[in-house]
């Protein structure tokens, strides 16, 4: 299955957080209503607004771990952000 850029960004962010906090990263991501996660296959489908889903995902980690987790998410998503025009990028990742 090929994922769109936003879904790939979500995968990168969760994987980046998982390297630091372990399975809690996936548990937190599963609390974002618009993300349908198949983590064993590293596949994600975004059902609603893609930008808000990414923002909400990053906010979940920020609530628990603070601003430093936002920086980790930014770093994880950096390589894919170039593929999005500036007005389509989630503000929190800019």
């Amino acid at each position, binding site marked *: 299955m090929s994922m769109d850029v936003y879904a790939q960004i979500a995968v990168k962010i969760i994987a980046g957080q998982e390297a630091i906090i372990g399975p809690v990263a996936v548990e937190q991501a599963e609390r974002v209503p618009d993300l349908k996660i198949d983590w064993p296959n590293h596949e994600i489908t975004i059902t609603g607004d893609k930008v808000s889903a990414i923002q909400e995902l990053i906010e979940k980690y920020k609530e628990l*771990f*603070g601003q430093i*987790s936002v920086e980790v998410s930014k*770093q994880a998503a*950096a*390589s894919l*952000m170039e593929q999005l025009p500036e007005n389509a990028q989630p503000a929190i990742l800019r």
Partner: protein
Amino acid sequence: MEKTEPQDTAPKKRTRLPFQKRKQLEQDIEHITAEMYKRNQELADTNKTLLLLRTIDALVLESHASVKMVCEHISQAITQATDYPLVGLFTRTPHDQDQMRLYGFSGKELLGGSSSPLSRPLHLKISDEWLASANTSRILSLDGMTPREMAENLDISATEIGRLLRLMPLKSLYEVKLVVRRRVVGVLIIGFHGDANNISQSDKTLIDRLTARSRPLMRQRTTSLAWPATSFVRRSQA
């Protein structure tokens, strides 16, 4: 006579104290959690670096393949373990004293692709002043550079550079010299999609460590070919 507590202040104190304690506790937990997250992040970075260094060690020390093959394997290992869009490893050629040849080349966008994006091997001219300088590394911002300027030291046409940049829209490069016994025997180049200012200290540390670990390969296989760094100075002055 019975002692009486002042009745107006005591209840206020009793309600304020638990509230203050709770707030303090929340702040402490927040601080501890952020601190633990930071430490875990450092550990994750260290683990990633160690894993990559072990891979490079194995490639350098256990392989009997040619320099070209080992360089290719090293650049592929770095690309796969990191998010760097481009990894290139230039080393000396036995035939030409004036340039280094790109032996290892790997790009994130090119992984799994069957053909090289280059029509012929890239060569780095050693007349580049940086190679003669004392700085072991440098950051190049590609934003303000024209393909013609980029092509200047690479012995390649500006058209081909333009084609490469369309394939990999890089904005900056981090370059580190591989120095063996005070001689420059190679250059590791990492490309970034982001601006030069956004290259993090952790990336620089990782790349510096990777370069240090690739040195034994150069020492083993290129020592007899290496040239004195001073020769760069003479060339660039001339």
